[in-house]
């Protein structure tokens, strides 16, 4: 049974990946690939495959980031987009562009990362001080916090004439991904591997601080490692693709509905469904107004908003 569902899952991923490869304005077909057509091959290698890899890496990275966030904050509604991580990353992006305009992308990534870690830690510390019971308040306060940060970002963008580039990141789009421009996203792989390595510790932290301390863990250290992993993952996605809302929130929650919260078990599935969901949304976005594209953040917002409302109602029913 488990074996078959894994085969099925793999098939679904392969079918979606193939669909993604063969959709686009330029005609790429299996026949022309097999006949060794030069143009077809270069389109595939420079544009289609990088796009596919970017989708897969961003989907897995952001979903796993959301899962880590939910575990270290002990809150179902925490995710990079509801605790201000993404907004702080964007602020870091603008400040990086202003201060180090001619430095390479790794410097920029470092600045974004530093802001994402710092901003998220600030919010997590704030959460730990507030001992309220209502879980829904966390994303509300987080989104407010994010808006305050993003107001600052907008101000800076106006001041330094960067508003145009800003709108490019706030709506995620995989259309601009080309070979040589997306490789930072490979950071998602070490993030997922490290997350798996720390999985039981994150899960222990998700039950509570005294629970984690009782089994000899350093709670503060685990939370910091978690936040750092979340920040790396979100920072790289924001920089290359833009903001993909809701992904880190809905994927881990849907997986945990069916499989519980033991991170060792659900981490691979969270990464998997993150990939598949982003693939599906990206394909839809490319087909709806073909040959034009709709940004993926639009498609995923429609879907994610619905799931989010369902989760809030479900939480109310439980509480």
């Amino acid at each position, binding site marked *: 049974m488990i074996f078959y569902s894994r085969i099925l899952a793999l098939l679904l991923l392969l079918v979606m990946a193939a669909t993604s490869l063969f959709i686009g304005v330029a005609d790429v077909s299996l026949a022309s690939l097999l006949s060794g057509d030069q143009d077809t091959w270069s389109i595939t290698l420079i544009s289609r495959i990088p796009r596919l890899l970017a989708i897969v890496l961003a989907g897995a990275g952001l979903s796993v980031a959301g899962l880590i966030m939910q*575990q270290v904050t*002990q*809150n*179902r509604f925490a995710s990079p987009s509801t605790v201000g991580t993404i907004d702080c990353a964007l602020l870091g992006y603008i400040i990086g562009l202003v201060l180090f305009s001619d430095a390479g992308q790794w410097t920029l990534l470092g600045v974004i990362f530093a802001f994402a870690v710092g901003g998220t830690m600030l919010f997590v510390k704030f959460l730990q001080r507030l001992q309220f019971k209502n*879980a829904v308040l966390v994303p509300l306060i987080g989104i407010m916090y994010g808006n305050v940060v993003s107001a600052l970002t907008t101000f800076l963008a106006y001041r330094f004439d960067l508003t145009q580039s800003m709108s490019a990141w706030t709506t995620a789009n995989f259309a601009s991904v080309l070979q040589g421009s997306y490789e930072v996203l490979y950071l998602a792989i070490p993030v997922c591997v490290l997350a798996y390595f720390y*999985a*039981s*510790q994150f*899960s*222990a932290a*998700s*039950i*509570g601080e*005294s*629970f984690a*301390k*009782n*089994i*000899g*863990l*350093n709670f503060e250290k685990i939370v910091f490692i978690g936040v750092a992993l979340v920040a790396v993952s979100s920072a790289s996605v924001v920089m290359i693709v833009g903001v993909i809302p809701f992904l880190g929130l809905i994927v881990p929650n849907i997986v*945990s509905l069916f499989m*519980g*919260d*033991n991170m*060792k078990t659900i981490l691979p599935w969270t990464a998997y469904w993150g990939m598949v969901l982003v693939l599906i949304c990206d394909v839809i976005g490319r087909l709806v107004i073909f040959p034009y594209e709709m940004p993926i953040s639009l498609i995923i917002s429609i879907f994610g908003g619905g799931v989010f409302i369902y989760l809030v109602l479900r939480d109310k029913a*439980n509480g």
Partner: protein
Amino acid sequence: MIKLTGLSKKYGKTLVVNDASALFPLGEVTSVIGPNGAGKSTLLSMACRLTESDAGEILIGNKLLAEWDSRELARQLAVLRQSNSINMRFTVRELVSFGRFPHSQGRLNDEDQRIINEAIGHLGITEIQHRYIDELSGGQRQMAFIAMVVAQDTDYVFLDEPLNNLDIKHSVEIMQILRQLAHKMNKAVVIVIHDINFASCYSDHIVAMKKGEVVKAGTVQEVVCKEVMESIYEIPFYIQEIEGQRICLYYNS
């Protein structure tokens, strides 16, 4: 044995625990009793390193608390606090498995699995071991948490109000299990408890606290008597001996 000497704790300007000393010997159940705000939970969480003390000395085994490595200590001392969050969905078995973390760092071997099975069997929750704890009743959930502490297999077991919100059947079962842990497996079991009749019937030692101070510590016979109880709780007490057990009656109209 755990020995507390002259422990104090201040929150802001209020002294919650004041110069408290107590002894928790192996092989015995020690109950800490007292009215709300007496400092029972604070004393307990200082003794098990969840709260730092402002003054005083905590001796665990033959080493001071500060000298223990936190991993090593987790194999010696287990603590279960009130209000464990149940936001997250874990199965009973997954929860109990966390008890083995200090021993195997998350990679469970056959020995760990055996101990987990034993702990689950011991608490009588084998049938619900694959259910999620957020779907269980309060009593079943508490059984699961206690099974986890049992699986941790430590010499010292601290429980903060383990009977909170439980029905009589679950309360009696839990107290019986705690007694077995102490008497058969030679552990030091320390509980903070509000129901003084449960404390009187199932403990070997009682530590009575009031306003942050240890008023009296000793055997059940020494502590559960009219003068001590009336001075702690400030209401009239009638104490009856029924089949060798001291029962407090304090239901005054």
